[in-house]
């Protein structure tokens, strides 16, 4: 349980970092491409590792982390690419848009699973996931615009995805005391 608590905490921290980074990119008029790639790359790597750890944690509901093995690996790989190829900012925003669109769509399924399990907050999860999906679609559709225009959309996308991940983690990851009479 301690491990799960640690993972939940780390996941929440990185989600907050994603929100902060996204809002910074959204609000600042022009973000240097190299700074965007370096900071974003580090964030993606860190969040990717936490996501993989989350997948292997013994979360009783298995709602928040159910897709995080694939998404965690993809996030870490994208992060590495961003750091090693800072000049590819123009291309990476499209890839990031697709990545966060897939992440948001996975949360739509999480909302449906939450409803099935009997969680009352599933509607809120679904609503937030659909907003993140909508922003992700916008990013994908504006791929050929100027980097600074697209990066602001990416900023909104990052912030929305961060809020979504934070909420899903807080509301579905259960850290109740586990009885160890037997194991599954």
């Amino acid at each position: 349980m301690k491990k799960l608590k640690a993972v939940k905490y780390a996941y929440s921290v990185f989600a907050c970092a994603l929100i902060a980074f996204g809002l910074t990119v959204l609000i600042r008029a022009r973000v240097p491409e190299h700074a965007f790639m370096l900071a974003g790359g580090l964030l993606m790597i860190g969040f990717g590792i936490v996501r993989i750890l989350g997948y292997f944690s013994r979360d009783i509901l298995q709602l928040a982390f159910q897709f995080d093995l694939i998404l965690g690996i993809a996030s870490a790989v994208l992060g590495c690419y961003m750091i090693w190829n800072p000049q590819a900012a123009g291309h990476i925003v499209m890839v990031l848009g697709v990545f966060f669109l897939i992440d948001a769509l996975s949360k739509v399924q999480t909302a449906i699973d939450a409803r099935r399990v009997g969680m009352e907050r599933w509607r809120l999860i679904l609503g937030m996931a659909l907003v993140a999906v909508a922003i992700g679609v916008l990013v994908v559709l504006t791929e050929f615009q100027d980097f600074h225009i697209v990066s602001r959309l990416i900023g909104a996308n990052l912030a929305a995805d961060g809020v979504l991940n934070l909420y899903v983690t807080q509301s579905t990851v259960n850290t109740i005391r586990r009885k160890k009479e037997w194991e599954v």
Partner: protein
Amino acid sequence: MARRTQAVIMQAFMDLLTRKPLDKITVKDVIEEADINRNTFYYYYENIPALLDALFAQEIRNFSESTERSDSFVEEYRRLSAVVRNNRRAIYHIYQSEDRERISRYMETGAELFVERFVRKAAAPYGLSEEGIHYVTHFYSYAVVGLTMHRIRENIPTEDQNLAERIEGSFYASVDDVIQNYIQFSKEHP
């Protein structure tokens, strides 16, 4: 391992039923109570109604396997009412839900299990048909179930010590007439 897991899930469900109405119990509640994960629950059961059906099926099996051929009507009824009494709160919570039809079916199945044996014994001298045996069995099973459901519905806390004897007395006082009446009616209305 699978049976143990199912037993843990069912026990967790029963514990929840003693505390909450059936309508308020979610899969999330069951997996938290049983300390299993979501996928484990869905490996065995599709949803809460499926779990409830499995629980009833197990209780019926237990009741059926514990019957003794030498048991009297009173002893059989007392066994059935002991099951109801020991699970009173859970049964009440199921009865209060939209699934009350299930509890009636469960009670009918349990009653028919022992009533049919006594009906067959009483019908032996008359050569009653299978259809007739089913009719008479249902007739008395519904009387037994109706009386028991009345006590559940009214949430009657104490058991009438003489009820079992009264039911047995009513059965033996009337079963011959019921059987003969069925045979006569069948002859007149083929």
